């Protein structure tokens, strides 16, 4: 069939058409890469890819994918949110220490308060004072970490606990399907829907693509940005709650290791760091790719150093290849 259509359209070579197809559907090459990685994994260690493994991979990819959601939204406007690691850690830590004395629902609500505050400060700094998002979110992250350290000393004697329902959500399986999907699927659907079909989503793209044009068309820039960063921080807070249910050991740097990978996942997923282009579907697959890659590097039993080198090189290579595919027209 391919040959028939190729001969019908002789001026367009096959390679060119494949490339155009890929740039029209940028998620396809990512899915292909994901499948290839899984196949390689199966070849390295036959039999590893089974139901249990898939469930586990998804379980660990979900927190990363959620944080990548924060980055995707921020990056669409040309920003970035480096405070998500701290925000998620704060929510997890506050919840785990407060749940000892108050009921879980209030503890969870309480734990999202710092997230809203940090998000609002980020939004005000970026949207109204026009501070560079990278600096603003690094700064609030630093302040948040300091506050967390001080808070830790006030609760050092109370101990911590994880509500059963969060542990169930984080680690549990129902018929082999991770329960975390109950949280993730609605959130992911909401993000994708918001970005694609609502006014707010279009505003994010508009602001990131051409801020001046967006402002001239009557977009209230600061409202968009403040809403965005508050949403991002709340999402990060929820991620923290889920992640502590998965890891079950709250610490002061719980979610910090996911920060840079979350940026990588969004970038691999095809969201432009300069704004205006990308989407959440790609970021989800990016998170899956990174998780599978981590498993693969662990299985190869390389020294920690070599593992990090490979991780860095793969992130770079995938992004470079992806940019070639999507941008070369």
């Amino acid at each position, binding site marked *: 069939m391919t040959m028939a259509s190729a001969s019908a359209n002789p001026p367009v070579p096959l390679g060119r058409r494949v490339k155009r197809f890929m740039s029209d559907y940028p998620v396809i090459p990512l899915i292909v890469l994901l499948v290839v990685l899984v196949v390689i994994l199966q070849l390295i260690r036959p039999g590893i890819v089974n139901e249990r493994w898939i469930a586990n991979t998804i379980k660990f990819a979900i927190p990363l994918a959620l944080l990548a959601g924060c980055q995707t939204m921020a990056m669409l406007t040309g920003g970035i949110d480096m405070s998500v690691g701290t925000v998620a850690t704060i929510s997890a830590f506050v919840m785990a220490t407060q749940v000892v004395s108050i009921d879980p629902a209030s503890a969870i609500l309480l734990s999202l308060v710092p997230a809203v505050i940090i998000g609002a400060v980020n939004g005000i700094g970026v949207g109204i004072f026009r501070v*560079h998002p*990278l600096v603003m979110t690094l700064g609030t992250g630093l302040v948040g970490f300091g506050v967390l350290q001080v808070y830790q000393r006030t609760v050092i004697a109370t101990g911590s606990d994880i509500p059963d329902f969060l542990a169930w959500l984080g680690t549990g399986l129902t018929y082999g399907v991770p329960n975390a999907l109950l949280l993730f699927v609605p959130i992911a659907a909401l993000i994708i829907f918001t970005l694609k079909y609502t006014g707010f989503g279009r505003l994010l793209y508009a602001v990131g693509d051409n801020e001046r044009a967006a402002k001239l068309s009557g977009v209230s820039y600061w409202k968009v940005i403040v809403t965005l960063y508050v949403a991002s921080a709340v999402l990060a807070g929820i991620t923290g709650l889920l992640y502590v249910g998965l890891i079950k050991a709250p610490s002061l740097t719980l979610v910090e290791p996911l920060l*840079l990978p979350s940026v*990588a996942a969004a970038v691999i997923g095809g969201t432009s760091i300069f704004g205006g282009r990308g989407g959440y579907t790609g970021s989800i697959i990016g998170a899956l790719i990174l998780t599978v890659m981590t498993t693969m590097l662990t299985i190869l039993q390389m020294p920690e150093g070599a593992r990090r080198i490979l991780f860095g090189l793969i992130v770079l290579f995938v992004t470079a290849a992806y940019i070639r595919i999507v941008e070369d027209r």
Partner: protein
Amino acid sequence: MTAYIRRNSWVIGLFALFVTLLVFTKIIQPDYDAGDFGSLVRAALPFAFAVAAQSIVIIAGGIDLSVASMMAVTSVTAAVLMNGASEEFALVAVPLVLAMGFCLGAVNGILIVVTRVPDIVVTLAMLFVLEGVALLILGSPGGAAANWLKVMIVGTVAIPGVLAAITAWIPNALIVLLVSVALVWIPLKRSRLGLSIYAIGSSQLAAFRSGVPVSRTKILAYALAGLFAAMGGLSLTMSTGIGAPIPGPYLMASVAAAVLGGVILGGGRGGIVGPIVAVFILRLVRTDLTLLSVDPNATTIIEGTIMVVVVMLGAYLALRARSR
């Protein structure tokens, strides 16, 4: 003269702030003397080099997330090279490590130019790679440093004709810092390359159309940042006597101090003096908070708040200046 002041108002303001802080320190702690100042400078040394590296790259319109990892790599390399070697061998090891930093920085630049991946992603990937390299070179903190290198940043040196009371306040570490930064920065600032770096930072397209070799300039900017990072790595080995493969907190600190120091993210504006003064201010604030016996954990909050407030203020002033 007034034009000079107006042009450098931010840096002069920072200097004034630093002096005020020094006086304030002397008031709250009458015992604060030249020796304490010496240790302040020694503690600030790696931060100062890190921020010098970051500033060059930001001026050129990029950002280098790999700066802390690069310092770790160069630091362990220096420590391994000098481990068990003679004192004289350090004379070879130091230039070798500096060259290595230059090359690693150039690799950053080349990757950015060749792959066309955004700076932030390339240097993020390099952060992981270099972290890995450092771990492969040295699995756990170890190695050694030549004795004369360690002594080089300790104490003061007598300058003939200058009162001892004054030289006491000029620690060797400060001289090392000023000399090594000046050796790179002053020729650079006066050269065509320096001008090109500012040009590609303020507008890549305009620079390209005026015939600036954009790719080459970018690679060289990253290479120079690598050179400074190597100096930072060396200063780490010099002050601790060993090399540690885990990167220190220099990434966030370098970005923060660069911005505080008047380098504008996005490129094209700022210098290298302001950021280095900013490093000293941040370190001195930390000392003061300790002297005031503030909870060390609260220190992080105060530092972060200072950074956020100053940056917001700076952005607000820039905004007003633009709209006028």
